[in-house]
């Protein structure tokens, strides 16, 4: 199976590096690589088929990568957006996830690292720093509620919120917040690394859903948005 990738990165060397790295692996195929928000938008309006993955740099010359992610989620609901970040710091990661991204890759890694990382992203989730895990724990703390681990597979992820974290997800979060790497988390919990990644992806997804739900509720509360159910085109 071949995964298609779109790249939005304004720095030519970085963009070339990503395209080159993707070209070294037959599982990946770059369908476009552009440097501005306008060029990326042109792809939406041209009705181009959605790539499986969209890599977006946040600091683009003609706009914010965050806005682009939100637009991409509307036009290409099935596309998974990933942020290209230099720092992978708490603030940018959380804002990206809240905008609709499912993870991030760090700039400054070798080609092999990038491919490996993208593979992880497809399989599971991006790295979760202790700071992001801590942020999530703080958001969960007020209720402290958690469902059973079995719910994590059967639960409806599209409507899940942070208050619906499973016990396993909470345990993963606590270990990540202490700086344990995925391998260590997997060993401590007696699961595979892929399971840990799966949980991390779920956590990012819940963080994004939770933020969007909060925004909608706040809008209804302020009577800015009618309290009708979202249309079928909404993700």
């Amino acid at each position, binding site marked *: 199976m071949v995964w298609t990738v779109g790249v939005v990165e304004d720095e030519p060397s970085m963009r070339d590096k990503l395209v080159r790295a993707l070209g070294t692996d037959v599982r990946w195929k770059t369908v476009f690589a552009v440097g501005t928000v306008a060029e990326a938008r042109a792809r939406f309006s041209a009705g181009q088929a959605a790539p499986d993955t969209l890599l977006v740099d946040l600091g683009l010359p003609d706009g914010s990568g965050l806005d682009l992610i939100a637009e991409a989620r509307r036009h290409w609901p099935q596309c998974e957006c990933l942020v290209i970040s230099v720092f992978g710091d*708490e603030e940018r990661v959380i804002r990206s996830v809240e905008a609709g991204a499912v993870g991030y890759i760090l700039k400054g890694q070798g080609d092999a690292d990038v491919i490996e990382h993208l593979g992880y992203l497809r399989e599971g989730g991006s790295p979760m720093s*202790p700071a992001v895990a801590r942020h999530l724990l703080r958001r969960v703390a007020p209720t402290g509620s958690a469902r059973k681990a079995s719910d994590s597979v059967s639960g409806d992820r599209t409507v899940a919120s942070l208050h619906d974290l499973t016990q396993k997800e909470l345990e993963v979060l606590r270990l990540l917040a202490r*700086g344990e790497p995925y391998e260590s988390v997997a060993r401590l919990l007696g699961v595979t690394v892929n399971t840990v990644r799966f949980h991390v992806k779920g956590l990012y997804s819940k963080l994004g859903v939770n933020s969007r739900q909060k925004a909608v509720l706040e809008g209804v509360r302020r009577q800015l948005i009618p309290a009708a159910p979202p249309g079928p085109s909404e993700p």
Partner: protein
Amino acid sequence: MTAATEHRRLQLLLATVCLVVALCAGVWALSRPAPVPVDSVAFRLEQAQRAAGSPVWSTAVPVGQAVNLPDVWRRQTPKISGVQSYHFVLPPARWSGPSAVYIPRLGNRARVWLDGELLASFGDVELGQQDFTPRPLLVTVQLSAAGAAGGVASTPTGSPRRLVIEVAGSATRFSGLSDVWWGPAVELEARHAARDALLLTSTGLAGGGSLLLGSLGLALAAWRRNVLLVFFGLAGLAAGTRALLWIWREPGIPYTAWYASLDACFGLWACCIAWFALRVAEIRLPALEWGLRGLMLLMVPATVMAALDISTRPKEIWLDSTLVLAAVITLMLVGRAWRRPDGVSIALALGAVTVVTLSGVDHWNIFFSPDAGAYTRPYFSHHMALLFGVFMAASLAARFDQAVRAEQDLRRGLADEVRAQRQELETLYARERERLESQATQRERQRIMQDMHDGLGAHLTGLLTMVQRGAVSPGELEREVAEALDHLRLTVDTAGLEGATVTDVLAQLRFRLEPRLRKTGLVVQWSLDDLPGALSVEQTSHVQKLVLEALSNAMKHAQASTVVVAADRLGGLRRVRIQDDGCVVWHPEATLPSVGSHRGQGLASMRARAQALGAVLSVSVGDGGGTTVALIWPEEATPPAT
């Protein structure tokens, strides 16, 4: 002077004039003698023969001094007291049916005789324990029962009938005898009943009203703990009690006590209203207050002497002085109302005018009026007390109204003041917050600059030198750049770790360093317990840099293969340990470098950071080699001021 003040003064003038006119009209209406019916057949007996002592029936012709009625003992010189008998020769009757003798007023007790036969007794003439002064008396004469035909005015022997009214009294109680009516019982009973009812009703109502006001005043005084209301309540009770005592024919207490009670009530009332008026009007005149105290002192002997029938002189002086003082106070109250014509002052002034007017009328009637009819005129002191009570209540209501308005103004003023203060505080707070934010931004900027200089800057400079010398392999170059990038990421992380614990800081450090450390082959074992206590951004940076320095030393200089990074609690202490298995490059006790200047600078930098954290830095060497750097500080540590 404002137009409003002028307007209030006009109102005051008009109200005073209207009040005086109304009072005079009322006094005139009530003082008029009761009208004699046009078809009256009764005789008015206006002359009598007065003789001291009880009547003597042995003499056929009345003896004594011819007097005109009313005969007021206090007006005689010398004043008369004791028992006096008034002899009348009744004119022939011109009516049929029962006859009656109607006496509008006498003092204080009496017996009525007809031809030597006792018809009626009003009190015990000899004992002197009752007082029938204020109320009219009526004696029905059943002549047929006396053995003669009803309605005739002569004895069976044909001689004229002799009526004797034996009066026992005292000059102190306004004793004497009014004119006497002799006529048909039907007519005189009606006139007696009308006068008695008027007197009882008006005095009873005035007394009852005063008692009610007084009770309310005292209840309010107890509730509100207010001295003014005490004066008000006592005045009302005193006036009410006096009115009821006055119309009580047979009180059942010794006459002297009853008489003294009447005067005491009057004195108490006068003093209370005077104090009340002066306090409410805020008039503080020592001479006036001493005058009032003097009158209170004088009241006691004057009353006692009058009650014991020793002399009425002191009481007359006391009454005159009271009236004079009342007039002075009234003038002051009116003057104050003129100067400050508010509701309180006007009510007090009108009340005082009422008191002076009505007590002046009473005083005139009792002591000075040359009119013989003055003896039977009603007293107005009871009505005066009630009226003044009403004005007192009005002044209190006005005062309450003023207080409520003042309180509302005060509240408004306070609210405005609080609003202004809050606004000022908010402005100050905003400025202070701006200042603090500016300071924090400046500090953070300095920290970032320092970090960039020490971390990224140093790396890039070293890298530049290596590139310029051409002595750098691609692997080394990648490693150096990756390290520089890590430093940059740690600098960025620090900003996001505001309020984090030591464990959070070490966890983030581990997250950043682990991939690169793994590539170097160095085994790092992390053991992080949860340590309490939030760190500031500066403290976070210190912990981060200190651990980095120790790790860097273990990796680059000590050639260690394994490093343990541990965070744990030790009693009330927080401890962070970095323990390597490499060679010793720092002397444990050294403050100066043991080998090489760079390493010495590293240790000095670590000590400075520990000091800034308020922590103790210890460097120890294990028996089998290796170095342990430990950072220990209390959980509630306060870093030294910078």
